[in-house]
């Protein structure tokens, strides 16, 4: 009996999960992330025509991203809440700077050259916007009053417009949705939600008017890709051919002809999902989508177990936005949504978005692993 009492006081038996917990890493989430990243490397190796150099660059990015994840996981959520205004403010200034001094890439100003490192301020905003909205709304009891709701919308809209002006419609929409998810999770009434949806629908013609030509072209092409098979419809036609010809089991790793013979454009970045579909078939992509759902599911579980409204809102937004990324990319590549230039999270080749994603997961881990230490 004494033994049992004694045992209860003793530290529980050593396990890998608990060891990770001490350094504020959530084992299940980590497992999911590692599986996604590993799958990503396997696919990228094929999509990049077996370029080891490219894989090494991607590994270096992953290393950077994991460092960021580890650092953020070890910062207490309260510190994050406190820094929300600062981050958002810096982000806004950088966005304006990009519009003024930014580097052009593919007809859009997105980059800020910091000498050693080219930086996209919009990536910072992907975290800063939900962080600030969650922090702001959690200051007062939920659901928010209509005044606080309007302020939240302003917090969301200002950077979104700045990013849309770069122009980077895809990122602008993702940032807006990450903020709007926070607002939705905060419990605003369904009447407001439906009203908002109705208003947005009514605003579509206005949106059409303010869109750039190339954006309008994308929408037109989306509605009828065959109208311009060699021009703007080419991407989506070739992508659908790649996906469709993969069939149930795929052509096999490194055997996708659409990808390797360069018919498929942007195959290491935005259209990498088509490579997966061609080489691994329906089975492969279904497994991948389930993996995404499991990772996001763990995030939603973390959100539901969070101890403050701020943490709940933030964790929920990060997890759900992650799913929005996947949905928008897959929808775009399969021809369900217009081409908006959103990479497939964790898998597409490219630097900044990988860092931002893992930073988000770092925040999730921080929220989950700091629970017991939070003041009641």
């Amino acid at each position, binding site marked *: 009996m004494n033994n049992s009492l004694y045992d209860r006081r003793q530290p529980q038996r050593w396990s890998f999960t608990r060891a990770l917990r001490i350094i504020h890493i959530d084992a299940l989430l980590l497992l999911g992330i590692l599986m996604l990243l590993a799958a990503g490397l396997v696919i990228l190796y094929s999509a990049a025509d077996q370029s080891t150099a490219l894989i090494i660059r991607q590994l270096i990015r992953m290393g950077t991203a994991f460092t960021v994840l580890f650092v953020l996981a070890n910062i207490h959520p309260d510190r994050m809440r406190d820094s929300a205004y600062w981050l958002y403010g810096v982000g806004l200034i950088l966005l304006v700077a990009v519009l003024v001094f930014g580097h052009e890439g593919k007809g859009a100003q997105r980059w800020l050259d910091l000498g050693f490192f080219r930086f996209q301020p919009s990536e910072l905003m992907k975290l800063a916007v939900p962080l600030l909205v969650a922090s702001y709304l959690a200051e007062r*009891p*939920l*659901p928010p009053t209509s005044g606080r709701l309007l302020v939240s919308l302003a917090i969301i809209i200002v950077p979104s417009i700045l990013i849309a002006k770069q122009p980077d419609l895809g990122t602008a929409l993702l940032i807006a949705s990450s903020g709007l*998810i926070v607002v*939705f*999770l*905060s*419990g605003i009434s369904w009447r407001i939600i439906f009203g908002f949806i109705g208003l947005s629908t009514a605003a579509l013609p206005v949106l059409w008017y303010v869109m750039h030509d190339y954006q309008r072209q994308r929408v037109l092409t989306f509605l009828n890709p065959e109208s311009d098979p060699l021009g703007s419809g080419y991407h989506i036609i*070739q992508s*659908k*051919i*790649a*996906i*469709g*010809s*993969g*069939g*149930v089991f795929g052509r096999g790793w490194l055997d996708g*002809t*659409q990808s390797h*013979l*360069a*018919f498929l454009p942007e195959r290491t970045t935005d259209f990498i999902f088509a490579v997966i*579909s061609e080489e691994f*078939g*329906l089975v492969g*992509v*279904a497994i991948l*989508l389930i993996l*995404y*759902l499991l990772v*996001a*599911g763990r995030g*939603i579980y973390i*959100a*539901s177990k969070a101890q*403050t*409204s701020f943490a*709940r*809102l933030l964790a*929920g937004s990060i997890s*759900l936005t992650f*799913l929005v990324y996947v*949905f928008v990319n*897959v*929808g775009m590549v*399969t*021809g*369900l949504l217009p081409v908006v230039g959103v990479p497939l999270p964790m898998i597409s080749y490219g630097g900044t978005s990988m860092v931002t994603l893992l930073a988000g997961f770092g925040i999730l881990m921080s929220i989950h692993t700091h629970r017991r230490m939070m003041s*009641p």
Partner: protein
Amino acid sequence: MSTHFALKNHFHEGRIVNDRLIFSALFAGLLFIALIARLIVLQVVEFEHFDSLSEQNRVDISSIAPQRGLIYDRNGVLLAENIPTFSLELTPENVPDIEDTLQQLAALFAMTEEDMVDIKEQIKQQRRFRQVILKERLTEKEVAIFSVNRHRFSGVDVVGRLIRHYPQGALFAHTVGYVGRINEQDLQEIDVNNYKGSMQIGKTGIEKQYEELLHGQVGYQQVETNVQGRIVRELNSMPSVSGQDLFLHLDINLQRVAAEAMADFNGAVVAIDPKTGGVLAMVSKPDFDPNEFVLGISSKNYAALRDSPDMPLFNRSLRGRYPPGSTLKPFIALAGLEYGVITEQSKSFCPGWYTLPGQDHRYRCWKSHGHGHMDLKAGIAQSCDVYFYDLANTMGIDRIHSFLDLFRFGRRTEIDLPGESKGLSPSKEWKRASRNKAWYPGETLISGIGQGFNQMTPIQIAHATAVLAMRGIDISPRVARASRPTGQSELQLFPAQTYQTLPMENSRNWEAVIDSMVEVVHGARGSARHIGKDLPFKIAGKTGTAQVFGIKQDEKYDAETLARKLHDHALFIAFAPAENPQFVVAVVVEHGGGGSTMAAPIARKIIDQYFGTAVNE
């Protein structure tokens, strides 16, 4: 208090957010189900569609042209071969400045402004990685010039490929023929798929006749191409099957002797092995160099050949229509014997002319003083016109026509060469149909001596002589003897010609006519007796002199005063040995004058070459 409020508030807020989280998770689940549904549509329902699109994207079929079969004479001497040539080719995508490169090349290789316009047009039309030929058939010097300057021209290179070459030059221009570039008309006649990748096609002669055999079977290479259309790897391939080699009956030595014997006269020589129908020599003069046509002849050179009054492109041995003149007489005589109109012994009197009953017009004999009493042998040996006027008049044109038809006069010999002319063997029916005029008895007379409407090609005359030599066995003449299929060392002989025997009443009649023809060469008064000396065997022959220029009544033919083109055609037919014929020859010398003086000696030279006998000059 504040703590209590915060706790209660916290619990309440947790409920609100968690409800929304559950709702969001379910909604996200729905969206992902939509994605899966979309993927099922693409990858399962429409799989076949996209799979075939993907195949079309990547798979390209390129053809491998077969190597054309070679052509040999009966001794194994090459008459047509394939030789490598070098051409200057440009790959547009590898040339930094096409305009500048072309300018510099034009200076180096003396290319004309016209060529440049052509080349630029081609560059515009083709895909940028396909080669454009700048200059064909580079000389060694030009290859050297380019090699020295190669560093200046990236994307330009000298490329070798096989083209047809005729090592004997003009000697077989008409018989073997030539190949040329495939044109629109050719495309309608050939299996286009089999010619993918081929640049040449047989245009005339053996090259055209045996095109299918010589060309071979195109090969395929199924390749995977990338988005730029470049070949990435070979998926599978079917090698091309080279064309079969052809072995002809033609004998280059005989051909050469025949061509040389013709000197610079226009005309034709056809020599046949009567037992097989094999054509041993076939000459049409003048001739031309077939190699000019292989890569496309320049329009200037072509115009020169086409417009030459001597018509060098015209194959006289197959298409030249000549009055056979007296060479027709043995056949007329045979007809007379067969119809029972004459016997070997029956005689006609030749006073130097012949008149039809009740008419004044004198049909003259070539010998104005007359031959006197003529029997069959003397009539043929001395080529008495009156004897044959009388015979023809008795038989009538229709009987003559139907008899000559047996020897394929007026019909094709069915030789294995394209473009053979039918010639013309007149009849009453023919004249009514073609000229809507009645037949005059006088026309029968001049038809009986091979003049008038009669028109025969040298191959027809030679073939009819062969039938005569073989005592009535009709074998179609053949130029090609055998083929050698790819990869085999043994020749495959073409099946023997089916032959037919002419329906003759009395086989003695053949001998009577042939004896008379022997008399032509070996008789004391034979019209070709000067070629009958120093031979271990007997030649049966017949001279012929075909009038080109009408001579008026009482006018005398004077070779001296007539321009050469108005001179008579000289003809000679012969076979040897007379009793067991192995060799038949027909000679037509345009405007050669007399058959006896001009054509017979040519025939003798050819016979000497064939039998290895020498003439004692």
